[in-house]
């Protein structure tokens, strides 16, 4: 605007601070500040995520460097010194690896698989849901029937099946490196249907609205209409399912790894650690199992609580 009396920079800065202020006054910030459970959950989730992301720099030991491992450190109980004289706050496992460090590195794998699989499921589900909802007819019928069939099985079984088939197709010498990607693909494919269903419903509502008709009258390309008009208006519920889906994906990864079909033992996730730990539960070395399990529960629970809060905060009917 050329006729404004301000210098060109001023309005931009003003707009930014006022937007920040509007955000601070918004309903969502208000509902966050008035929900103690959500505040605690977000702090727990943040601490766990930071621990995982920063593991290579802040972990007391590198549990996967054989040069630093000492079998004499094995089975050290929490908060004590080992035979070799090193101190371990959460104890060590059978190979003398520091439990705290394995948890930090394990959360890294769990979170990476969880995030990637959810993102993959979200992109696939949102894309197919948009197509089904907008085009309707035979597209809708085929996509949604496939989703229905898939939703009638537990997601973990689907993931197990996809994982098994994909492993079979990969040459044995590459299996080790590809395992984590196959796992992401399997969990992602097992979870896309939830997203597709929600997005399809929301799309069917939005496509009836007049702003979409206005764009169609102009002859705007359907792909552009979906991307620029419909997608931004159906993303609200997607973010909610995405958050809850993240918690589910982390648990599914842990389940697969616990069953021994997930990530390779050289790159253990929380599920792998729990599997290792349960071998020693009844011989008195409880800490090897307990601490990874508690971490998994805290991680899944806090993310789930955040998802629940987000769903309620974005749903005006529940206010």
């Amino acid at each position: 605007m050329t006729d404004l009396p301000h210098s060109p920079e001023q309005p931009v800065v003003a707009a930014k601070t006022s937007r920040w202020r509007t955000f601070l006054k918004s309903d969502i910030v208000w509902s966050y500040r008035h929900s103690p459970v959500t505040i605690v959950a977000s702090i727990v989730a943040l601490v766990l995520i930071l621990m995982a992301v920063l593991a290579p720099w802040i972990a007391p030991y590198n549990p996967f460097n054989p040069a630093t491992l000492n079998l004499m450190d094995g089975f050290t109980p929490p908060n004590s010194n080992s035979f070799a004289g090193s101190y371990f706050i959460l104890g060590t496992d059978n190979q003398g690896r520091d439990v705290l460090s394995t948890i930090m590195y394990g959360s890294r794998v769990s979170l990476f698989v969880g995030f990637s699989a959810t993102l993959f499921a979200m992109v696939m589900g949102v894309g197919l849901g948009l197509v089904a909802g907008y085009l309707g007819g035979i597209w809708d019928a085929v996509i949604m029937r496939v989703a229905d069939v898939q939703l009638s099985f537990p997601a973990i079984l689907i993931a197990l099946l996809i994982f098994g088939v994909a492993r079979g197709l990969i040459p044995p010498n590459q299996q080790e490196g590809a395992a984590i990607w196959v796992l992401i693909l399997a969990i992602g494919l097992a979870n896309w249907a939830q997203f597709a269903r929600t997005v399809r419903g929301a799309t069917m509502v939005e496509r009836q609205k007049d702003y979409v008709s206005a764009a169609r009258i102009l002859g705007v390309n359907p792909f552009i209409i979906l991307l620029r008009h419909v997608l931004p208006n159906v993303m609200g519920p997607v973010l909610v399912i995405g958050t809850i889906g993240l918690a589910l994906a982390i648990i599914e990864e842990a389940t697969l790894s616990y069953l021994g079909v997930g990530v390779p033992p050289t790159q253990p996730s929380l599920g792998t650690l729990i599997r290792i730990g349960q071998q020693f539960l009844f011989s008195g070395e409880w800490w090897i199992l307990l601490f990874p399990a508690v971490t998994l529960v805290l991680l899944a629970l806090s993310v789930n609580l955040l998802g629940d809060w987000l769903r309620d905060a974005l749903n005006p009917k529940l206010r």
Partner: protein
Amino acid sequence: MTEPVLSIKDLVVEFPFRNDVFRAVNGVSFDIMPGEVVGVVGESGAGKSMTGSAVIGLIEPPGHIASGEIRLKGERIDNLPEEAKAKLRGRRIGMVFQDPLTSLNPLYTIGEQLIETIRTHLPLSEAEARQKAIDLLTEAGIPKAAERMESYPHQFSGGMRQRVVIALAIAAEPELIIADEPTSALDVSVQAQIIKVLKKLCANHGAAVMLITHDMGVIAQTADRMVVMHQGTVVETGTVGDIIRRPQEPYTIKLINSIPTIQRQAGDVTPEEAANDDGAYVQVKHLVRDFEIGGGGFLKLLPGKVEMFRAVNDVSFAIEKGKTFGLVGESGSGKSTCAKMIVGLLRPSSGQITVDGHDIWAGGAGHKERRKRVQMIFQDPYASLNPRWRVADIVAEPMRTLGIARNRTEVDHRVAELLTRVRLDPSVMRKFPHEFSGGQRQRIAIARALSSQPEFIVCDEPTSALDVSVQAQVLDLMQELQDEFGLTYLLISHNLAVVRQMSSAVGVLHNGVLVEKGPTDAIFDNPQADYTKMLLDAVPDISRVA
């Protein structure tokens, strides 16, 4: 002097918010005498429904009555405990709501609902209550009432359901009926019957009526006295005839003047009559549209006969360049289906539409011509603007898509110009649609329609979601733009008064068939088709004040 049935004194209803208190009703006082019909009229947000809710004690928390008093036959009812208030509802105060679809329980038969209500409030046996229910339904004008007692609400039409709701409200012989927009969800012809039923039943049973509505026409034909509300306060109270003929307050005068009427007012310039020749700018010839009834998806792949429903049946009309053609019809008459075919959203089953000589459904070339020339203004200004886009992007979309303006400065310049044209400040460009009122949004929608520099605009109920005073402004703006740019309009509306005011020619649609078309004055003053006559008779109009 007899005691009023309902007496409201200095009523204040407040809604506390996080950092603010909103006064929905601010010092309202009025009385309703026994057997009297009092209309409470006002635009949206005037506090008229909130006053009604306060009387029956159904204000949604956190809203509450902050001060003032409500008396029913001299007895204070605003400070009664919840159980006592619940006893009043139905027994002494009956309610008729706007939407007959949701005010009846779909899981119970009409008979069960009526008998339950009657027996809750009156000491009658099952058989007596049943007889009373049948009498009430007959009185409400439901034919073969005894047989229809076993029917479920979905087996009734909207008008019939509203009759049942009225029968329910009157069942316990209450002293006062509160009717909140009882006819707003209904078609004109049904509306007239329901008003009659409401009036007759209340007169027969001696109930006073508080009729809440935004429609001055309904009040004019129903009420004895009226209360005009604006922003939570009473602006004017008086007999209906006095207020409509001689309004005193500036707000009431403005309100009454903005209401279009189906009578031609002295001093109006009669638009020239349109000649129906073949050189007309827009021509619609033998338009037909069929819809398949029933299953979609995989069912379509099964062999078998598909049942068809003909929504638009052989509709033909022509519009002169720079003129307005009004298409009138009730819900389900096929008027919106016609609009969709003309703007290119729905392919006609057969027939032809030409704009400036180009057949708009004739392949790529016709498609291109249509995009350049035809635009549309929609009914709901809340749904017609993408909530996630800024106003600048919304208005610029047509010119960007059609390549009218490409670089940013030029687009911004044109958007600012269009916003000024529709009398909005150009600085609103950076805002989002939710920051605007309904009327302002409709202006933005008009600016968007003009953005592609069209010659022909289809307006599908452009003002029916707006308040009357806003409606008048939008209609004025449309008229002005027509004169300025030589626009041709197809105006689709159920509101006969709006059509009369705007159009030079009119077509009347009924069940997909164009029953009558011709110059506006000829149709309104001398209708030929029976349906048109019935429609014109049924319209509640302020010129018909008793």
